[in-house]
């Protein structure tokens, strides 16, 4: 009798174990496929990056960063391009970030949920996927001709800001939604207004996520070529825009906003389209620098997010 029971239990145990083994196979298969995809993507990126580094290796020196473009490939540098890219990004940052955060806060905290807010939501999400050349055409019509801003740093910065805006809005909304409802209720319960709740709580607790979105948006903007070409960035430029900061009062000037410019990806495009091999080396070196900048920015975004998660846990 007791023996029978023991046998029963052992049979049952064998069955359970084979079932678990079968179910776990799914775990293993999925983990395997996932690992394969991740590794192949990482390797592809790494190979591309290393290829650029090897091709561009002869040009990795300080002269490359401090020289203007030149007809002689070995004397040519990316000074005007990286200065142009930096100035354009400054404009982009100051245009897209306040507007994007404000839009995100408005949509989450203020807007009534109805068909109109749904429509806006769909549109914003869609904007993030619109091909960048379309933004270039829009900017050409609106900023260059409509507002008469010309083919300037200001125009380029605003154009890239349009491109970055949906990314900032979506990131802001996601970050705001992660704030637990009971924290919000706590703030309202002591008599705070919507504005106070947004300013003292919502933005402060979501800035990690917002900042991540901002940096990722900037990383995208730095590599954009099509819209900047469309609005008419110069491809060969041997001067720098007026300096934004000066040694004499008022120390800051805005003349640079109206200067012509070029940016890193355009400089690269310009060199790659020349027949001489020597220029292709320059293009590879520029490409490596763009990828490096993008990686650094994304790395910074991850680091910030990590630090903030450590500080705020719900």
């Amino acid at each position: 009798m007791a023996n029978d029971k023991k046998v029963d239990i052992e049979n049952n145990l064998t069955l359970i174990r084979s079932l678990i083994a079968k179910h776990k196979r799914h775990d293993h298969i999925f983990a395997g496929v996932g690992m394969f995809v991740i590794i192949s993507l990482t390797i592809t990126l790494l190979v591309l990056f290393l290829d650029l580094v090897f091709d561009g290796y002869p040009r990795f020196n300080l002269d490359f960063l401090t020289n203007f473009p030149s007809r002689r490939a070995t004397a040519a540098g990316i000074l005007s391009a990286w200065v142009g890219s930096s100035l354009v990004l400054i404009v982009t940052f100051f245009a897209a970030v306040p507007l994007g955060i404000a839009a995100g806060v408005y949509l989450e905290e203020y807007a009534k949920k109805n068909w109109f807010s749904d429509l806006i939501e769909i549109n914003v999400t869609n904007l993030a996927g619109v091909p960048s050349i379309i933004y270039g055409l829009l900017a050409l019509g609106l900023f260059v001709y409509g507002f008469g801003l010309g083919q300037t740093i200001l125009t380029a910065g605003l154009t890239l800001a349009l491109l970055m805006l949906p990314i900032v809005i979506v990131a802001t909304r996601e970050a705001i939604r992660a704030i637990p409802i009971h924290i919000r209720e706590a703030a309202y319960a002591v008599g705070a207004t919507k504005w106070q709740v947004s300013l003292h709580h919502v933005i402060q607790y979501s800035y990690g996520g917002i900042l991540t979105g901002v940096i990722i948006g900037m990383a995208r903007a730095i590599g954009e070529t099509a819209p900047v070409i469309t609005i008419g960035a110069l491809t060969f430029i041997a001067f720098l825009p007026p300096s934004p900061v000066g040694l004499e009062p008022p120390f800051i000037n805005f003349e640079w906003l109206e200067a012509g410019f070029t940016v890193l990806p355009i400089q690269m495009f310009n060199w790659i389209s020349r027949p001489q091999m020597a220029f292709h080396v320059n293009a590879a070196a520029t490409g490596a620098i763009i990828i490096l900048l993008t990686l650094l920015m994304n790395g910074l975004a991850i680091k910030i997010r990590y630090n903030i998660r450590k500080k705020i846990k719900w």
Partner: protein
Amino acid sequence: MVEKKRKHPKEIIKAEANSLNFFYADGTQALKKISLPVYENKITALIGPSGCGKSTFLRCFNRMHDLYPGNKYDGEIILHPDNTNILDKRVDPIEVRMRISMVFQKPNPFPKSIYENVAYGLRVRGERNKRVLDDKVEEALKGASLWDEVKKRLHDLAFNLSGGQQQRLCIARALATDPEIMLFDEPTSALDPIATMNIEELMAGLKEKLSILIVTHNMQQAARISDYTAYMYLGELVEHDETDKVFTNPSKKETEDYITGKFG
């Protein structure tokens, strides 16, 4: 004014709900014709099974339902001595929340320092004077019997406190603005027995200064701390009387069934 016939004539009414109905945005009626007084310097406990509407009722007192669109009040809650109907659309919910504060079920301190948590209600009111803030924060933390535990680390993050301390911090935050009524929504349901005992002792002291309305799931707690108890069921008020009477000699059969554990 016609003096209504009063059940407990010796008590001063601080607030009273008069035939209060409440509808959620989806149309469900969560409260049905509730009339209930909240007496001054007394603790009124709301008991009843889950889903009976006790939390919904509590959240009417600080217009918390206004935060979500589509909710509808019908009836009134009169706040004395100024006879303001706090459910009136012309009364700003923010004004109501400045007079009636709330402590929630789950401790919900802001991810800020201990000091800033307590000072927040005053900052919202525009208080900038550092000395006034310091004094009020100390007073509120003492009132919530938390001062001795945190006075050396006022600028630490509130999250570093234990659950019971966090809840007392939330009480200090609600206390700092000198409310007339404090609402407690199952304040000890997430806490261990010792933290619960601390908070119950605290409430007994608080009623010297203000009036308390508490929702509790725990009948022993209601019996221990409250002066008056209201039993709610399916959105209706079944019985309201002195706690001793409700627990020893309830006038309704349903109340007796719930209290003796036959139901609920």
